């Protein structure tokens, strides 16, 4: 039975990838080796191969760098404003709201005592993901966080921060001993150990998939709604498509904020769990 089911799936995939109608959506969402600035032309990005590994600069890498530049410029401005006076003004107000939010609403309640050590990581992750999410919403923009490689890497960094944080606080053996909850029968220990060990890896896996799926889905839905006009070949669908696409776009603004918050929040929560194992 499963073979027939799988063949249907495979056929659908083949049909969809072969057809021009869906190809353009994936082309827009996926990573690319050039910056498509039609009608101004196409910028081909340099291709680099090092030790047999393809480390070419891609569209998503470029947008990550744009995010880095924007963040650095914004925070240099913010720092200057703080050097001038303790009262924030201009763009500093916005940044301060977010910084204070990450500090007081995310790091402090979830990690508790000793949260200051993880604050730079959490703030960087929050602002980086937020900026990458928003860069996907501007024209010619591309969402680096809709690339599974990027989200998986961010989640892996999160994983290392969680483990290193836990090991630094509780010691190497103390940390792994603390993973197993107290008061369980001896014969359950091997199973619990495996379960908890798996849990360590599922947490960042969930982080990666959640961010990737959320950032990809919105774009695909917008593209599909716009594509409806060309597939149905009628003007009557235009108002529906545009209004729905606009709605999804507004939703994406919300999702961009929420996903940055959730990634940071969950990272912080896992750090807190690894850091204070007694709870």
């Amino acid at each position, binding site marked *: 039975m499963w073979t027939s089911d799988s063949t249907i*799936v495979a056929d659908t995939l083949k049909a969809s990838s072969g057809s021009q109608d869906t190809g353009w959506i994936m082309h827009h969402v996926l990573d690319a080796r050039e910056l498509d600035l039609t009608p101004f032309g196409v910028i081909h990005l340099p291709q680099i191969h090092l030790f047999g590994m393809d*480390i*070419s600069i891609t569209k998503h*890498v470029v947008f990550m760098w744009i995010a880095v530049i924007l963040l650095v410029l914004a925070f240099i401005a*913010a720092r200057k404003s703080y050097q001038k006076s303790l009262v924030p003004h201009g763009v500093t107000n916005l940044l301060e709201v977010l910084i204070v939010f990450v500090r007081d609403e995310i790091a402090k309640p979830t990690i508790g005592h000793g949260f200051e050590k993880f604050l730079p990581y959490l*703030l960087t992750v929050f602002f980086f993901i937020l900026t990458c999410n928003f860069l996907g919403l501007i024209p010619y923009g591309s969402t680096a966080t809709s690339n599974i490689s990027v989200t998986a890497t961010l989640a892996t960094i999160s994983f290392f921060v969680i483990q290193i944080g836990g090991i630094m606080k509780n010691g190497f053996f103390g940390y792994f001993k603390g993973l197993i909850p107290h008061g369980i029968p001896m014969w359950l220990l091997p199973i619990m150990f495996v379960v908890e060990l798996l849990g360590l890896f599922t947490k960042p896996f969930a982080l990666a998939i959640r961010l990737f799926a959320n950032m990809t889905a919105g774009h695909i839905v917008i593209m599909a709604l716009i594509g409806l006009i060309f597939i149905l070949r009628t003007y009557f669908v235009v108002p529906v498509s545009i209004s729905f696409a606009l709605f999804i776009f507004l939703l994406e603004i919300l999702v961009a904020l929420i996903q940055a918050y959730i990634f940071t929040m969950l990272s912080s929560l896992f750090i807190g769990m690894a850091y204070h194992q007694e709870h």
Partner: protein
Amino acid sequence: MILADLFVIALAGGGESGGPLDVNPGVILWTVVTFIFLLLILKKIAWKPILNSLKERETFIKESLEKAEIAKKDAEKMIADNKQSMLKAEEEAKKIIDQSREFAEKLKSQILDLSKTHAKKMVEDATNEIERKNAEAFNKLKEQVADIAIQSAEKILRENLDKDKQVKLVKKYMDDLSKN
């Protein structure tokens, strides 16, 4: 069954040049480099100074609030002190006025009493003087009368008068006496 479907999708995605689940090692490397670079640079230029500024400001606000609270308490205490001292001063003034009034009253009654007794004494003295003078005058009169009587008796004895003459004489002298 679903796993099998997923497997097929993954295979198809991996087979194509660029499926949504396609993992690109180059992007992973660049993500790591970019993120760590961002973390280090922001830690240096942003997080440390900004978080310090925020903390500084928070402590500043906290201290200011505490200071304001202390100042408020001081002011309240001062007002209460002022009120109390004012009440005390008022009481004192009242006491002083009462005291002086009492004193004046006392003085008044004393003076009155004194003058009354003085007057009484004066009147008494005057009365006594008058009585004394009266008595003196009466005594003088009595002496004079006695003298006159003796003189008249001498005259009578010398002139040898009869009874009628005696009576007349006595009457005459008595009249003289009363005239005097």
